[in-house]
């Protein structure tokens, strides 16, 4: 349990909860459909999109399983995400052609008031299943902690932390966002 998680969690009203859920479900659909530019447009300018790798350490080891200055599969700002999407869109991205089929399943959405009036802390769990060509099937399951910032009638994603269960990634690559 991080110190942050022990802070008082102030729930939001049902209308805000509904809007956040719809935002996350739409985001998942954009990724399923490889609508990369539309997905990128959901990011705030100062996005920190982070997916650390998990180290197996003993409980007594104060270093913990992950940290921002250690291994990561994503530790991205907007430029980094833009570069990844540039690759996806190249006709020479050989490992994307034929297309990968993606299923992003989002569940367990909880929304709390953030540190700032226009920000929300959003917890969710996810299942991600990818299938390529005949029978390359990769499953990732985990949990996300987001900060969403109000943007007109919708939101921008300002921060995302993705924690997966795997320590050794059981796949040859990670050609999707979570």
């Amino acid at each position, binding site marked *: 349990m991080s110190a942050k998680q022990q802070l008082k969690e102030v729930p939001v009203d049902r209308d805000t909860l509904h809007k956040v859920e719809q935002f996350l479900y739409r985001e998942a659909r954009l990724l399923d459909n490889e609508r990369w530019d539309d997905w990128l447009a959901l990011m705030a300018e100062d996005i920190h999109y982070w997916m650390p*790798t998990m180290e197996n350490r003993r409980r007594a080891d104060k270093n913990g399983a992950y940290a921002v200055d250690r*291994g990561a599969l994503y530790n991205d700002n907007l430029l980094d995400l833009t*570069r*990844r999407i540039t*690759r996806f869109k*190249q006709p*020479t991205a050989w490992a994307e052609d034929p297309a990968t089929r993606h299923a992003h399943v989002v569940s367990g959405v909880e929304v709390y008031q953030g540190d700032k009036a226009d920000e929300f802390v959003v917890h969710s769990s996810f299942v991600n299943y990818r299938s390529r060509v005949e029978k390359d099937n990769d499953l990732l399951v985990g949990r996300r902690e987001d900060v969403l910032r109000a943007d007109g009638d919708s939101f921008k994603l300002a921060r995302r932390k993705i924690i997966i269960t795997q320590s*050794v*990634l059981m796949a040859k*690559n990670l050609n999707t966002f979570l």
Partner: protein
Amino acid sequence: MCTANDGSPVRLKRRPIAESVANLDRLMDLDKGRMSRDLFWDRDIYEQELERIFARCWLFVGHESQIPKAGDYVSTYMGEDNVLIVRQKDGSIKGFLNTCPHRGNKVCFADLGNARQFVCNYHGWAFGIDGGLKGMHASEAYEETGMDKAEHGLHPVAHIDSYRGLIFATLDPQAPTLAEYLGDMRHYLDAIFDMDEGGTEFVGGCVKSVIQCNWKYASENFVGDILHAGWTHDSGAKAMVGGSVAEVHKFPDQSYQVNFNGHGWEFNQDIVGNCATLGEKDLLKYLYVLQPKVAERHDDFRSRMIGAISSCTLFPNTSFLPGQNTFRTWHPRGPGQIELHTWTFVNKNAPQEIKDKWRKGTMMTFSPSGVFEMDDGENWEYSTRSNAGYVTRQQDLYLGLGQNSKLDTDLPGNVYRGQINEANQRAFYQRWLDLMKSESWKKVPQRDIPKMKEAL
């Protein structure tokens, strides 16, 4: 800093060398640039590799910077054998099989950490960081039987040593020294791991993934295959720098391949070509400032390698990329699978923000989410898997580029003109064949004569 492990009572009964897979010579005709696909598929060949390659060669097991203090350890693999690499109280380093000599359970489940002792979860056997058995749960029961604890420590690796911070170990007591094993490659390793007096360190921990390919596809790619980059990695280059990969095949007089004892390095003299793919100007500036100092410390030729378009494999399964600064081991997991462990190496004396940029750079380019590595895995998986076809795997494969391109030079190692070449791949497979055919280290032919005097 490293010492060989002391010879404790030998409880490990190594099997006599097994009968070889028949007629290994049929697997390659390197002068004609041909080789068999059986190397990537056959289970018996794989089992013989575990015996004659992985239980015999010096294998990379860690970087000194990962275990600075007494009791610091990392858990890693030598072939499929899990080993613990542990810093000792006197500053030396020891390595042990990660298995309890009582009933065989693993004694350490963490990837890394600091330990005063390793205690087996099964019956509580407790081992010091020197591997010695110190005590156990219900010790009276053992005392009654007269068991001598001194005879039941963790089993040490046969030899452990380091070069420029890189720690290697071998499980074969008859192995040559690490200096002999690396031979003339040390001359070139100094260009990357000894740029200044601070040497290198690993930063950011280890990123691990599984690829369903034969380990040799990965090793041969890094030993000499820059050729694939211009095609396979076009999308990654466009993502990172907005253009195509440099057309190195047009300038064969500005680049080289060098190999020794099956290790190989393909490289350009462009100083920063690999580093440029990280899209970080500050890293280029750092290397350009460092280059004249490396020239002074070593020589101009090697100073032009510090971040150049290049790749290297240390036989059999450890590779790195100068400039992109990824360091990696392809652990074999059967003929059709590897577990890839990767780290980021940096100069210890580099400013923190430069180290951070390299740590991010390896993630963006050569990690499972990296824009370059993403396209490698799929190539190697299907180069392996297509051999399931009974007839398919009887079609041999080609590796004939650069025949007759060997240069007459005073440079250490076997040096070839042009990094677009398959001389290193052929040397890698020749070494593989020599080891597979030899019943002991003594019988392995010494094809390469070292130019570095201090080698023997």
